[in-house]
């Protein structure tokens, strides 16, 4: 037997093998790029499912909007729905993104378990946590893409006009989504330990609707819940044209603070759950 043992430093130029794993920022960006590529390749190959999801979301909004408009119009109250139409559109825009950003991580965990690839993700030198955070970045990007597409379709359908200041909308939406991603991390952690958590997870969509619609006034404790502050600021930005720097510093502080606290707390719960799953030996189960 010829035992030509490999070592990390013994590169073989003829095969193009690398000297060692690149775990620097550049390496992390390579992983991010590959996760993006993988996501969109898989999305492309499941394109019918993806298009059906988009269509279902759009039709749901159309039924809600036109059905509500017809119902209100039949009793002579058309003016009432027109006044709140912009609010409904912005709320729906945020809801589609928040729902996607929140549910995608526990969905990823369940799906990767079923595919048998979750343990492979765990065995990355980058660490399981960072790999999942990288997946979250891809998820949020995908959510933005879906949200933007949906917003365009809705605006076309309803013939409404909203202020689309990218420099304001993107950071506000991003921070609002990051807060809800924290909850996604908690459910992803529960999915690692308990596997099937979709039923509990689905209840969250009603909670998300409630958080988006929750009123923000003064020092209301509701402002410290995920999404609430972001939703209010997004309404102001898109309906009233308020720019990012025009928001009170206190509001911006709550937006950033809520995003940081919920995402970090959710991430911590996820790491604890992954250790519990490993202690119970159920990491790859489904």
């Amino acid at each position, binding site marked *: 037997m010829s035992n*030509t043992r490999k070592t990390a430093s013994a590169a073989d130029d003829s095969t193009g093998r690398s000297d060692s794993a690149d775990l620097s920022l550049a390496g992390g960006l390579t*992983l991010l790029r590959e996760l993006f590529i*993988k996501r969109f*390749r898989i999305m492309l190959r499941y394109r019918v499912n993806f298009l059906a999801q988009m269509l279902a979301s759009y039709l749901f909004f159309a039924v809600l909007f036109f059905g509500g408009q017809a119902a209100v119009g039949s009793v002579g109250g058309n003016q009432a729905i027109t006044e709140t139409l912009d609010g409904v559109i912005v709320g729906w825009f945020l809801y589609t993104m928040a729902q996607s950003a929140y549910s995608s991580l526990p969905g990823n965990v369940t799906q990767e378990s079923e595919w048998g690839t979750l343990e492979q993700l765990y*065995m990355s030198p980058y660490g399981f946590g960072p790999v999942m955070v990288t997946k979250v970045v891809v998820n949020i990007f995908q959510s933005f893409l879906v949200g933007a597409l949906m917003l365009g379709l809705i605006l076309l359908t309803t013939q409404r006009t909203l202020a689309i200041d990218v420099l304001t909308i993107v950071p506000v939406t991003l921070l609002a989504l990051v807060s809800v991603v924290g909850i996604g991390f908690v459910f992803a952690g529960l999915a690692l330990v308990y596997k099937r958590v979709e039923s509990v997870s689905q209840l969250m969509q009603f909670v998300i609707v409630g958080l988006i619609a929750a009123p923000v006034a003064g020092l209301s404790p509701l402002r410290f819940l995920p999404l609430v502050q972001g939703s209010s600021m997004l309404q102001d930005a898109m309906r009233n044209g308020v720019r990012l720097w025009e928001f009170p510093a206190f509001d911006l502080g709550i937006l950033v603070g809520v995003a940081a606290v919920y995402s970090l707390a959710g991430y911590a719960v996820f790491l604890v759950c992954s250790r519990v799953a490993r202690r119970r030996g159920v990491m790859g189960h489904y």
Partner: protein
Amino acid sequence: MRRMGAHTMGTTSKPPDGVESSPNRDRSGDGEPAIAVENLSKEYGSGDEAVRAVDGVDFEVEPGTAVGLLGPNGAGKTTTIKSLLSLIVPTSGQVRVDDIDVHDEPGVAYRRMGATLEGARNIYWRLTVKENMQFFSALAGNDPREMGDRHDELVTQFGLEGKADTVVRELSRGQKQKVSLACTMARDADVVFFDEPTLGLDVESSLDLRSELRNLVEDEGTTVLLSSHDMDVIEDVCDRVIIMNEGHIVADDTVENLLSLFNTQVYEVSVTERLDASIRDRLESTFDADNFERLPNATRFEVSVTTDEFYELVDELRSADLSVESFDAVEPDLEEVFLKITDDEDANERDRKATERKTETVSRATNP
């Protein structure tokens, strides 16, 4: 017949009673072992419901060798492998891969090791062969754009030319398992783990995959630890075999030594006469004779004998006035060895428990 005792618990890789040191281990003086497992235990649950899946397992694997974990269902093979990979947190014990503590520094250890745990799964069926290799290479910290040659080499090595751009779900099961293997190798790992790598494959695909696994060791110098129910896989791929039963190691030696250790040889014996009932009974009871077959001019049967017993058999046949036409040695396979060892282990365990119960009864009687 030599019996094998339970593996001695200890802090070093100590062979069980009656097992000679393997030649592979003797090379350990050249450097650190690729894998070192020390007093590994895993208990699921707690209190009365606790189940000890792995119990004080110690072993080492020399670099560039293949070691097989063999054992019945529930023996603790998968728990051992997953504990080695830090996918399961052990109750106690230490695992080092290339001298890196896997549980203290998993990130560093994952630069050196990879695993195929679920045969044809472990990869993305909606991606092509190359796309999978690119992804898993990046996941291991490599830049896939710089690994193109290596990926091409792996595609060729695993006989997947012409399939590189095919979506995995369109491949046969055997090809999928090869892709899974190729993706593990695309991580550029020195130490690889395989849990039941040939499970569900037809004979031809299994033989093909075994050959690929052996090539990893011989051509690439990769260290391989694999578990399998298939004794033939272990015989074909591994230099050494560790037999596990009920969470602990019951035998640990080279495949060759283990086969020779089981020094009972099966012979196919042909005699020219017919056997009467009395001699047949004696052969059955004394020499485990079976598979009796009456041929036109002879009688054929199989016996299991040690070297000493072989001469007794010859004497027995001679005293019964039987003329031996031929003795043919039947090649023993690892399955016989495995069944024999685990049966002996179970018998020892039953004896031990019976002794304990007896002692307890006596103790209660004397100390009511």
